[in-house]
Each structure stands twice: as structure tokens, then as C-alpha cells.
């Protein structure tokens, strides 16, 4: 797998500069081409190409029975995807916005997550649920939420989040190939950030986290939209002579904490960054595990920079709600003060 785009020096033959939105589109296209059982389904995914145009042009090329404009009902989308999967298809469902996954929550938790277990492995449900998530785009209510921890809490589901176009391209295809149900969280505020994509390279494994910037002073771990924020914070900190090591978690269930433990053993400090509210979240889980595994290496308590434990505020307040570079650096400073 190539290093993140930022660190890739020059474009070579076969590579192209793509946005994350385009990378996801290309990933879906590749999956649809590779396997006739792959379906794309959701509201407005056909002619419109989805509200974010991630499915742009797919219905035109693969037809209405591979790329389905579904009725407007999330429970329906997930529930029928479960049925289609039982029948041997590999549906990729699009949920229009994070806040609209809840009408489909019941089907995800009650059926999608549990069928394999209930059937002792005889029934597999290889469904991918794509969810554009997180804030920072100035949207109205229900369009900026970070519900990923709710799904990571459910046994039987896998939960991943990409942070850059290259990962987006590969991780989506890997999720579709995976025989387990995967909740695929896409950082919508990063949809239009670009990187070089070389579809001929070998991708990194799906359920693995990765160090995306080495450093020695403090470990900063994040996923999805906050990886970019942490990389920017690391650049700013470096100007002051503080080297941050940034870990992109990539997979939230199962968590892959090996690289985090290893990093914390070297730096002695950990700052976790997530847009989601702090209480009972993925960051709570990581903090617990790190203090169990790295207790003797820690020079400071594990610190968190997160959204607040409130409903998502009106967009004029999201700048304060969402972790930004300053809040990350503030936590880094506090960690270093111990």
C-alpha cells in the first residue's frame, strides 16, 4: 500500500489525481465490474449519482438492477439488502447522511449484525453500509453526526473509516469483498481533498491501523476526518520543534491497537482525537486498553479531544464543537506538561 498521498513525491504512469469522492466512485465501479453480484442501492444513487455524486454514472453503465434507486426508507434499504445478501448478492447501501441511519438502525443491529451468529455460520450477509459522516460542512440538523461508536459497540459488525482518497479507493473494495457486514464511514468534509491514486499498487490490509507520520514527542491517534486535522497539527507542532506521531486508526471495530501501543511505548503520551461525543465512545475504549497495555510506559494520562456530550449544535457553532488544530495542540501541550 502506498503511503498517504501527501508523502508521495511524484505521479508515475497509471496514477491519477483524484478527490476522495472520485476515488470512492472508482472503487465502486471496480467492484461492480469485478463481481456481477455486487449491487449499489440507496436514495438518489441513480440518475442523480447520490447527493454527493459518489455513485455518479454507475446506473448509466450498470443498469437499474445493479444500481438501485430505492424508495425513501432506510429500514427498507438495509432490510432488503440483508435479504439480497441471503440470496447471494453483495449489496453496498448508501445512507444519505449520518443522521438518517437511525431509521435503519434496527435492521443493522437486529439482523445484519446477528445473522451469521444465529445461523451458526450458514448464512452470511456481506453487506456494506456507506455513511457520509461528521461535521464541518455548515449543514442543517442531522447532517453532521458521528454515530460510529454506536455501531462499534455491536457484536457482529465491522466498522471502518477512511481518511484519504487512496484508502477510500482500496478500503471500499476490500469492505465489499469482506464476508462480514461492514459499516463504512466516509468523512464527508474530506470528499473534495485530492491525492495521487495508483490502482496498480497492492493495498494495505483493511482492518489495520497505520502510522501516517512518525514522531517521538507525543502519539496522536485519530480516524476519518480528524486525521487531516492531526496531520496539520503535527506540521504546526514541528515548527515549534515538537514531533508528533500520527496514527490513522482506519478500523474501529475490530480496533487494531498494536501500532498505537507500540507508539505509546516510545512516546509515553497519547492524545486521542475524534469528532464524536466523548462518553462511551471509541476513544473511551482505546484509552482503557492503552492504560492496560502501556501503564508503565505512560508519562501522562491519555487525553482526548472530542466533540461535546451534547446534540450536534447549529452550524454557526460547529467550529467550537469540532476539534481543530488548536484544540489538538492544546492537548499536546497539556500532555507534555506532565
Amino acid at each position: 500500500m502506498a503511503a498517504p498521498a501527501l508523502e508521495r513525491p511524484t505521479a508515475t504512469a497509471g496514477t491519477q489525481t483524484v478527490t476522495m469522492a472520485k476515488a470512492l466512485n472508482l472503487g465502486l465501479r471496480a467492484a461492480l465490474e469485478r463481481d456481477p453480484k455486487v449491487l449499489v442501492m440507496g436514495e438518489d444513487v441513480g440518475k442523480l449519482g447520490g447527493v454527493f455524486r459518489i455513485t455518479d454514472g454507475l446506473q448509466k453503465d450498470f443498469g437499474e438492477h445493479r444500481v438501485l434507486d430505492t424508495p425513501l426508507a432506510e429500514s427498507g434499504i438495509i432490510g432488503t439488502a440483508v435479504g439480497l445478501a441471503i440470496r447471494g448478492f453483495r449489496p453496498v447501501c448508501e445512507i444519505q447522511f449520518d443522521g438518517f441511519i437511525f431509521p435503519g438502525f434496527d435492521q443493522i443491529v437486529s439482523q445484519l449484525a446477528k445473522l451469521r451468529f444465529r445461523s451458526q455460520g450458514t448464512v452470511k450477509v456481506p453487506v456494506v453500509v456507506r455513511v457520509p459522516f461528521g461535521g464541518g460542512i455548515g449543514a442543517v440538523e442531522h447532517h453532521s453526526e458521528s454515530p460510529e461508536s454506536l455501531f462499534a459497540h455491536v457484536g457482529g459488525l465491522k466498522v471502518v473509516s477512511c481518511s484519504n482518497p487512496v484508502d477510500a479507493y482500496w478500503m471500499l473494495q476490500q469492505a465489499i469483498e469482506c464476508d462480514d457486514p461492514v459499516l463504512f464511514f466516509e468523512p464527508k468534509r474530506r470528499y473534495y481533498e485530492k491525492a495521487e491514486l495508483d490502482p496498480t499498487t497492492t493495498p494495505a490490509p483493511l482492518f489495520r491501523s497505520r502510522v501516517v507520520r512518525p514522531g517521538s514527542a507525543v502519539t496522536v491517534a485519530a480516524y476519518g476526518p480528524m486525521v487531516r486535522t492531526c496531520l496539520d497539527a503535527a506540521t504546526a507542532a514541528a515548527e515549534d520543534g515538537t514531533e508528533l506521531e500520527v496514527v490513522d486508526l482506519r478500523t474501529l471495530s475490530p480496533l487494531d491497537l498494536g501500532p498505537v501501543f507500540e507508539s505509546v511505548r516510545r512516546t509515553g503520551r497519547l492524545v486521542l482525537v475524534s469528532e464524536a461525543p466523548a462518553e462511551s465512545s471509541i476513544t473511551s475504549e482505546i484509552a482503557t486498553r492503552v492504560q492496560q497495555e502501556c501503564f508503565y510506559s505512560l508519562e501522562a494520562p491519555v487525553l482526548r479531544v472530542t466533540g461535546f456530550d451534547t446534540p450536534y449544535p447549529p452550524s454557526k457553532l460547529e467550529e467550537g464543537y469540532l476539534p481543530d488544530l488548536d484544540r489538538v495542540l492544546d492537548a499536546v501541550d497539556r500532555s507534555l506538561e506532565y
Partner: protein
Amino acid sequence: MSPEQWTRPKTEGTAGPPAATAAKPTREQVIAGLRATSEGGADLVQLLTPEGQRVEHPDFELDVSTAQLRDLYRDMVLVRRVDREGNALQRQGQLGIWVPLLGQEAAQIGAGRALKPQDMAFPSYREHGIAWCRGIDPTELLGIFRGTDHGSWDPIKKRFHLYTIVIGNQCLNATGYAMGQRFEGKVGDQDGEATMVFFGDGATSQGDVHEAMVWSAVYDAPVVFFCQNNQWAISEPLERQTRVPLYQRASGYGFPGIRVDGNDVLASLAVSRWALDECRHGNGPVLVEAFTYRMDAHTTSDDPTRYRLADEQEAWKLKDPIERLRVHLVRDHGVEQDFFDGVQAEADELAARFRDFCFAIPEPPPERIFSEVYAEETPQLAAQREEYLQYLAGFADDAMAGGVR
């Protein structure tokens, strides 16, 4: 069937379901039903033709004075003007998004003016015309779209619930509210209370809407389901949500369903009044399908050129709700140009006030993030707020000391 028959489906037996919902429809019936999903069909209640001709309907009488007609006209022109201004403000970067109402003025003003003060209304997110009728100043809508609040009116006092963005949710909430009206004995005569809930054609696919219809039926809740069938759910045409005309679904739940010309403010008013009256007398629920068309994009983030046909839009232009009432006022009521000029001037003034207000909306203070999350604040949240405000104060200190981060 007359409205009277619809209201007593249990005692009168069934008059036979409409063709397309019969147990085994013929191929032709299915096709006819499908066509009726996207064309008005014979069951459309109309009191004013697209040419502005007043017509009678055997079941729906409406006695309106010239003064009342003028008021309805004024309502429609004013909300359209506000709507266009909202659209323009979004284009100018002043609003994050705007949800256009263009083309749906008659459906909303008809329904909105049928509501009585004691009634409750549950909107979706496009109900600027209903808001207007409930006495919400249009400026009170702006915060939602500018991102300063989630709705600034008092939903209890105005009897107009907050806008609901999650499709279909409000139908169950409205049903529960209406159940409460019944439990409290507030139905039974013409002074009774009723609830009206607004949603789109797309919403009818949601489980919540189905559940709301089941619940309202089994509890005889005084709720009018007012579906504005504007033909599109973002890019998805009506055919993607249903195989039968939506109003016909009501019979499956055991209450009356009726389709009204949503571009005819008089029909919308008459049918809504009837439906609300049924509810206040304890004969609800009722489903009203207002057959209309979304003349603009779904929202300012949408691109209808990707999916909509231009000639479809042209055809609907000819059914413009405001224009047909104007013609009727001029031709049959001798209303002079002065009146129309006056309304236009008033609309422009309102739009200017709306615009000025938009620019003047203050930014919400940062502590708003933490306010009113719970009735009884938790110590954790209080601590989060303290920590956050201290963090912000640190910046102020830095700035005063000339420091930079």
C-alpha cells in the same frame, strides 16, 4: 364516495376499494393506477380550474367572500416572495441552504388557513406557508438555514412544531399528540381540537409514516395526514415510492383518503376544513393528498437538471396557483390592479425586512452548545462547559497580551 361515507367505513360497509387497490387488479387497472400517481386523475377535488374558472364540487362547498379571496391571494404572494428571497440569500452565501416552496403555495395556504387556533400542526422542513398561517414571522425561519439555531419560535405557544428533517418522524409525533387530544376529551364538536401533519410523497415510504397511520386508526386519533405530493423525492419520481395513488392507501388503514388539487387554494381550503372538522368531531383520522409539483430544486444543494424533464416543468407552470386565483379575482370579482400592486409592494417590503433581518442575526454564543441539553444539568456537562469556556478565555488573554498561538 362522498366524504360522509368515508367517515364511517366501519358501519356502512365498504363501497368496494378503488380499482387499483382491488385484491387482484387487472393489468389495465394497475396501469391506470400508475398513471393516476403522476396525473391528477378523475378523483381530484378542484374548485378553481387552472384557467381560473370557479367550479362546483358535489361534496365540497365553499363560501368565500371577495375579501377572503383577496387574503388568500395575499398570503400566497407573500410566502412566495419570502421563498424567493430565501433562495436568493442562499445564492449570495448568506444561508447554508434553502428549501424552496415554489409551486406549493396553494396547498399550504389552503391547509394553513383551515387550521383553527386550537389545532396543532407538525411540519416537515418545506412548510414556510404553514408557518406563515400559524403566525410565525418568516424571519423566525432564517436561523435554521443560517445555522444559528434549530428554529426560534415557541412550538407550544404557536401550535406549530419545529421543522423536522428526518423524513417521516413527525407523523408519529403528530399521532401521539392527537391521541393526547382525544384522551383529554378535546374532540366531539365543532370546537374540538385537531392535529395536522405535513409530509412529502417520498415520506410515505418510511416505516414511521405507515406506523403513524396504523396507530392513528386504532386510537381514532384526530389527525389529518396532509401529504404534499410534489411528484419528486429529491431525484426520485413518485413511481419510485408507490404503485397506487397515495390517497388510496388510506382505505387499507380504515380511514378516508382524498386527493385534492394542490395548486387550487380553494379546494385545498375546503378539503382541509372538512378533514379537520371530521377530526374535531371525533371522526378522524383522514389522509389528504395534495397533488402538486415542486417548481424549483429540492433544495439549493440539488441539481434537478440531472433527472427532471423540462417540459414537465413547463406543463406545471400553466397550473400556477397564484396566477389562477389572480385571473379569478379579476374576472369574477372585478378586483382592480391597485390591489395587486399593493400586495406586490407589501411583498417587496416583507422581503426587504427578511433580508435585513438575515444580515443582522447575531452569532450564537459558544455556551449555547451546552444549554438546554437536559432539564437537570449533569455535572459532567457543566464541567465540559467550564473547561471549554476557560479554553476560549485563554485565547482572549493571549490576544490581549499580544500572544499568538
